[in-house]
């Protein structure tokens, strides 16, 4: 057995390291929040100083100017895209991994290739495709590309996870008379809660913050999403810095809050549904 002292020192050091990393993560964020509560003049004078009066008005201004209109759209687009990304990807990964079907590898490589494509490259061709299907400047104009562009990565993640699920579970289910769809919904999905949670967070992150497609494919103000709203703070020759920072904080908060809420669920899922045998 290792000596207790030795063990304790490494414990302390490791914990210190973790705390140091937390400081590195938080420091820039705190600085940003600090400065979002100042006036522009205060920012220029000394960016490290505390604000004289806390300018909550910056947040109200940011909200009124660019964000409230776009919030609902972001929620709608993100939610719908997410549901279908998870649905299609899990089905795809299921088909790829649990059946040893012919050509699985080729299909997997094709899906993988989808990840390598740069979004900007697809911009002009996609524009033409969307116009051809008459869905340009509708919610579909972003939802469909989002789903398509995120399936490769999600499939990649899910496949890695599904591979590690033992076949015995399925074999038992088959003997019990389950068909493949039932195996999917009653066995695979429940066990895969952690990876569904990871994928949900990762994809939500992308869709919520996506800018390029939203900017070009959504012309109508009524459809536009938050990232476009953020851009209205970035003026032509000027940036209203403090309001912009406030806007950045507001737009990042939903995802962060959602993550912190979901992560509890996600931990529960890990400890409760873990592979027991």
């Amino acid at each position, binding site marked *: 057995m290792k000596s207790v002292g030795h063990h304790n020192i490494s414990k302390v050091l490791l914990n210190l390291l973790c705390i140091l990393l937390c400081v590195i993560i938080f420091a820039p964020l705190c600085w940003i929040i600090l400065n979002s509560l100042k006036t522009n003049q205060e920012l220029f004078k000394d960016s490290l100083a505390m604000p004289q009066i806390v300018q909550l008005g910056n947040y109200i201004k940011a909200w009124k100017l660019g964000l409230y209109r776009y919030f609902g759209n972001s929620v709608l687009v993100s939610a719908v895209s997410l549901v279908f990304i998870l649905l299609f990807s899990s089905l*795809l990964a299921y088909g790829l991994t649990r059946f040893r079907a012919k050509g699985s590898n080729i299909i997997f490589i094709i899906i993988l290739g*989808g990840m*390598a494509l740069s979004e*900007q490259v697809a911009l002009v061709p996609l524009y033409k495709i969307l116009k051809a299907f008459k869905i340009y400047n509708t919610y579909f104009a972003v939802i469909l590309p989002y789903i398509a562009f995120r399936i490769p990565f999600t499939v*990649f993640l899910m496949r890695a996870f599904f591979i590690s699920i033992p076949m015995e579970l399925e074999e038992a289910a088959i003997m019990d008379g389950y068909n493949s769809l039932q195996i999917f919904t009653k066995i695979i999905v429940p066990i895969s809660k952690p990876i569904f949670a990871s994928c949900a967070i990762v994809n939500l992150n992308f869709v919520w913050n996506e800018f390029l497609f939203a900017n070009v494919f959504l012309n109508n103000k009524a459809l536009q999403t938050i990232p476009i709203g*953020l851009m209205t703070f970035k003026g032509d020759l000027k940036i209203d810095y403090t309001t912009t920072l406030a806007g*950045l904080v507001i737009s990042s908060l939903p*995802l962060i809050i959602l993550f912190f809420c979901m992560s509890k669920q996600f931990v529960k899922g890990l400890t409760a549904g873990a592979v027991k045998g």
Partner: protein
Amino acid sequence: MKTKKMVPYSYMLPGLIMVLLFVYVPVIMNIGYSFFRLSSYSSSAIFVGLDNYRRFFTDKTFPVMLRNNGLYCIISLIVQVGIGTILALIIDSSAIGKKMKSVYRNIYFMPSLISLVAVGLMFTFIYEPNLGFLNALLKMFNLKTRAWLGDSKMAIYCIIAMSQWQFTGYITLLMTVAFQNVPEDYVEAAAIDGAGPVRRAISILVPQAKEQLLVCSIITIIGAFKLYTEVYSTTAGGPGNSTQVFGLFLYQQAFLHDDLGMAAVTGVFIFVITVVLSIIQLKITRSGQQ
């Protein structure tokens, strides 16, 4: 039976169609564009054969971009994947209390939830030579202040550092999921056999999470060559062209120089290089062979 054979394919169909239609069709259209000179608003296109490719590979910024994207790739693999995985191991180990595990993991993951544009703007601010966070701190300790993003040699490293800050925790999260799914029995068995924590990590945890490690490496490599927003929202390729990267070059060709052909070539290049690197990685780890 015939229907049974079709079953796996019917599961794969919806996803496959989406990807083929909205991702591959544009790719193919793009490959087509790469042999022409055209702009997004021109009514006609001129066939130029391989001339765009020639211009691309002989462009004086090509070596710069190769260096920048390559540096980004290597550093990210070391920091994001390497250190990220080590972090995941540390968090997973007994050194960290149960309550703190999820706290640390969540905190490290948080930056990746902020949009790239927002982080770019944040760091432009932080690196600002006169009132930015970094130089303000340095001034406080009477240390020499630097030009950061304004220094041709340093700028790309500043951007790379920004990315590591943002995404290391992301990899840590993914790897934590993988480690927590390694059956307890394996780990306990190794402990009983006398393996210390480090040994357990190297011989049990990491190999068991091989798939996930592969995923993380591949997405890091692909991300390194698709790099665009991080540079666009900070230096836009400057000073000079010291921070130019393929993704930004593509964008500038398409929208500033109205040269869709060159943009298409860049896109094809990014596509090929990332697919090749990914396949190599797959082959090396011979993943998924059951």
